[in-house]
């Protein structure tokens, strides 16, 4: 009898924990929706900022964030695939492979602000680019790298040994096997990993605040040097501290809601294939 009571109690406590976690999500979304929904309109997304954020929209902030994450993706993809291939195909010793994964975990753990300071030293000052969209994109690519690489590595590990052996048996060279089997299979990991990673990276303020973004005056970049962009997270950060008009308030929440929706969209799209395979697995 006592064991049953403990069992029910434990279930209840852990259920409560899960409920708390889920309701936190509900509270966050609810709060932002309530305060930001009023700012949402077609005009908000297609018009540029006016009166330092009080009126107008966030067209160029969306554009800026889009430019940053696109650059991050393009810079990160070849490196992530490379590391995936090196880890899965070219490296012979398990010991080295573990070292690669460890390095990726370390990179993943580096706080965002340190990338910002690093970028400030290298791109802004040493290379003399001033604030540039490219610096932001490259730094975000660095932050994106571990997530994408781990996804690709997992994909490669999932390739059935039989396929590889069959290919080898047919006389294919290593490089041909890579092109025929490994690369196509890794693209799935590339896409999923990138969506998950970009969701996180799109909302980062710290790496771009010293290196790539400004508060007002940029539209689209005109080159590499001195070509900053506007961005959603930095806009929120500045308005939260420096807005001069309560009227900017609803725009602030509208921007936050927009960013949140963008991030959620990426996460949800990334989840679809995983949900499909998870449901499939369960049915086995």
């Amino acid at each position, binding site marked *: 009898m006592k064991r049953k009571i403990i069992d029910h109690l434990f279930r209840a406590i852990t259920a409560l924990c*899960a409920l708390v976690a889920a309701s936190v999500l509900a509270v966050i979304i609810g709060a932002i929706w309530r305060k930001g929904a009023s700012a949402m309109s077609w005009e908000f997304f297609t018009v540029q900022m006016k009166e330092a954020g009080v009126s107008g929209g966030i067209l160029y902030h969306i554009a800026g964030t889009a430019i940053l994450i696109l650059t991050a993706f393009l810079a990160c993809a070849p490196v992530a695939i490379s590391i995936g291939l090196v880890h899965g195909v070219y490296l012979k010793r398990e010991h080295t492979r573990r070292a690669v994964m460890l390095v990726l975990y370390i990179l993943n753990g580096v706080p965002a602000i340190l990338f910002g*300071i690093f970028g400030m030293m290298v791109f802004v000052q040493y290379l003399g680019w001033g604030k540039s969209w490219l610096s932001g994109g490259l730094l975000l690519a660095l932050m994106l790298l571990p997530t994408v690489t781990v996804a690709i590595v997992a994909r490669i590990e999932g390739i059935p040994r039989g396929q590889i052996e069959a290919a080898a048996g047919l006389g294919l060279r*290593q*490089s041909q096997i890579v092109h025929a089997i490994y690369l196509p299979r890794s693209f799935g990991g590339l896409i999923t990993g990138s969506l998950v990673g970009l969701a996180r990276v799109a909302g980062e303020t710290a790496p771009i605040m010293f290196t790539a973004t400004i508060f007002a005056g940029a539209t689209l970049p005109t080159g590499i040097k001195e070509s900053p962009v506007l961005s959603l997270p930095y806009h929120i950060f500045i308005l939260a501290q420096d807005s001069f008009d309560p009227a900017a308030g609803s725009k602030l929440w509208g921007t936050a809601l927009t960013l949140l929706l963008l991030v959620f969209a990426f*996460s949800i799209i990334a989840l679809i294939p995983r949900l499909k395979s998870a449901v499939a697995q369960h049915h086995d």
Partner: protein
Amino acid sequence: MSGVGAGRRFSLTRWASTGFSALALLTLLAIVSLFLWQALPVWKLEGTGFVTREKWFYRQDQYGAAPMIYGTLAVAAVAMILAAPVGIGAAIYCACFLPPRLRLGFKVAIELLAGVPSVVYGLLGILLLRDWVYVALERFDVLSGDSLLTAGILLAVMILPTLITLADDALYHVPLSRRLAARGLGLTCTETILHVTLPHAWRGVLAALLLALGRACGEMIAVFLVVGRQDNQWPEKLWSPRPLIEAGQTLSTKLGSSETNIAYGNPVHWSAIVGVGLLLLFIVTTVTIIGSKVGLLGKRHET
């Protein structure tokens, strides 16, 4: 997997891959080296005092980072104390008690929560949380709602999804055979969890905790807005809870403050700022490495 197929030693793909991988590794090394190099002047000035001294007055060229180290660790500790029980409890419920469809739904919800940007958390913190904390703690004569505690609570919410996801993965991957065997022997679900699942998965859960801790130490934007950014808050009694309800400064918030912009012209001040970054890098990397080793070790023990 590797070495299969007769390889032509000089395939383009192989060289490109190796090249790009080396680039990534070199970048990480460049970050560490650059930080080490730029931090040299303050090391020459203060030596180990940089880490142990309690006063940071940059106009007097005094650079003691101890209160910031305390701030970082205190905020992270509060976050872990609040998030660990809730997170592990939720992970246990998700991995062991939830039916498959609900588990999927829950995991989706947690995944979405993990994507919420820190600036949004910061916004909610500055406009909601700090008022709640202020009202709750008024009787203790606190200065304001900005405190290490507020930052810790905010961080707890931020690291919760990471913690839940990783811990859930660890628990869920305990072999079904063992769990069924325990149930077959007549153990209740709870007993199975406590005596079979958790002991088997403890390494994965510990790794989850450590990785969440690493994130808590490094977070800047959200903490920046609610921690008060008050320097030289070295507690009189290290283990008392009183300093937690006062404002403070962490290593990360110092880096994000206006000092980083002001410091650039002054070599010693700049190197002090970079030194703070180096300290942060050291702490976070240590935690990450320990967490990874524990996690990777766990994988090896799995059958």
